[in-house]
């Protein structure tokens, strides 16, 4: 589903964020992405989102090589990728429902369809009763779950998460990881960037480790199919 082939990202002559990164993620696979601050986690996620383009190598998502993707096509790729952020990026000028509905709105879904799918997503994260509230009225964990509902509302085949549990206590973190696990079970490829070593150990999943832009662990095994290295 996601494949990096010899990907290098250089910002300017002396700052190289990623060096020849190679890895592949299968459909339905859940993996962690870890490393010190500035190791290149965010850059890697941005390359999948086509917020950045690689300096060398190829990024392939869903069989599509993103390097050569024209600018106009970028939004259509993003519709197939759900993203969850540490600071959730919710809009406080609208209700929980409207926040979750945004990905459907940009796709031009009909209001009937939107209502049905937004409620399904909110139900999944256990916030169906709060659809009419403003995100400001919710707790941190609830806000994060709204962010997740928004990321999955249009059923993307890929789900990315950038420090999704950064501000949450362990119990809430476990809840959220549980949700991610469920998504991967139904075929969504999930990649979670996190510092939280305890959480990673608990989940016992494949872990991609970045160190100064190099993939030092977890990357080797899956190239073009096969088992996942854990």
């Amino acid at each position, binding site marked *: 589903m996601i494949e990096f082939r010899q990907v290098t990202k250089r910002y300017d002559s002396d700052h190289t964020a990623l060096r020849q990164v190679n890895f592949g993620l299968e459909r339905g696979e859940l993996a962690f992405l870890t490393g010190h601050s500035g190791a290149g986690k965010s850059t890697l996620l941005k390359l999948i989102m086509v917020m950045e383009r690689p300096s060398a190598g190829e990024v392939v998502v869903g069989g599509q090589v993103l390097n050569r993707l024209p600018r106009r096509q970028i939004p*259509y790729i993003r*519709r197939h990728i759900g993203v969850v952020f540490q600071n959730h990026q919710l809009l406080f000028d609208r209700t929980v429902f409207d926040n979750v509905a*945004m990905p459907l709105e*940009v796709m*031009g879904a*009909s209001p009937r*369809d939107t209502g049905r799918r937004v409620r399904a997503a909110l139900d999944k994260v256990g916030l169906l009763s709060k659809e009419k509230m403003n995100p400001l009225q919710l707790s941190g964990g609830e806000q994060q779950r709204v962010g997740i509902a928004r990321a999955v509302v249009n059923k993307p085949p890929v789900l990315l998460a*950038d420090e999704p549990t950064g501000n949450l206590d362990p119990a809430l973190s476990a809840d959220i990881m549980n949700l991610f696990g*469920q998504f991967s079970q139904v*075929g969504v490829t999930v990649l979670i960037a996190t510092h939280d070593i305890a959480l990673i150990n608990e989940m016992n999943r494949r872990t991609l480790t970045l160190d100064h832009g190099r993939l030092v662990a977890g990357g080797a095994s899956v190239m073009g199919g096969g088992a996942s290295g854990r």
Partner: protein
Amino acid sequence: MAVEPRRRPESARGANKARSPWREQAESYLTHHRKVAEDSARRLWHTPVASLMTWTVMGVALALPVALLLLLTSLQGVSAGWESSARVTAYIDMDVPLEQARALRDEVSGDGRVAGVELVDRDQALAEFRASSGLEDALDYLGENPLPHTLLVTPEEGARSAEGVEGLVRFIEGMEGIERVQVDLGWLQRLNAMTDLLARAVWALAILLAAAVVLVIGNTVRLSIESRRDEILVAKLVGGTDSFVRRPFLYTGAWFGLGGGIVALILLQLSLWWLSGPIERLAGLYRSEFSLDGLHIDGALALIIAAMLLGWLGAWVAVKRHLDDMEPGDITGS
């Protein structure tokens, strides 16, 4: 369930598309447009003072050139009216008898450039003068009629230009028994030259003010883009196309234009009402048919549409400058 078991997401999406035919797609597209338009209008409505100020600026900038154009059109109407009534007056020698004057009339009317000739004989002229001048008693003291026979020549439509009339004048002047030919077109030419100059000045002003309107709206929309930055970034993040992200701002520009156009119409109507009394008096003094016409319904409509287009254009400039390069790259942090 938010996520159903899904082996092949692509085909699932395809099935979804098949369930919603193009009619439903178009419907939701229109619904979306209406929603965005309403939302943009509501946002303007929620900041009434700021919106009203922008509308007023735009209204003033639009009303000024339109008022000048109206004035110009009225002036051109005046000169056109005069031109069509341009007549050449030929005074016949005092000693020419009436029969010869009639012959002269027939000769002049035979010319191709002449639409009609009226002969006013001296007795008739004296009677008219007596009636209109109020100098009856003074005329009685004169022993004989001091007025000559006169030909009033109306040029043909095609000969009503300055050169055409001039040629006609030369032709009549060359005839036997004509003492003097009078045509008063000089002031008309000057008026024409002045209205031409004024027209250019007005158009230059209109273009400048239109540019000002575009910039004002552009700046206002830029501020609104800044204030909705988060929303734009999230929309781009979840796959909103550029046109999706632009749409609310373009509608905002068009609404600014609508408001500005309406303010301009109100200003025009007010100043027309304010000026109509004095203009009527002035025109009356000149015995002129001059009247300052307001905008008709189609003109008003054209003004509003033009204003909306300008607003839209201003929004487009702002959107092009500030929105397209806004990328959600910085949203994720590091």
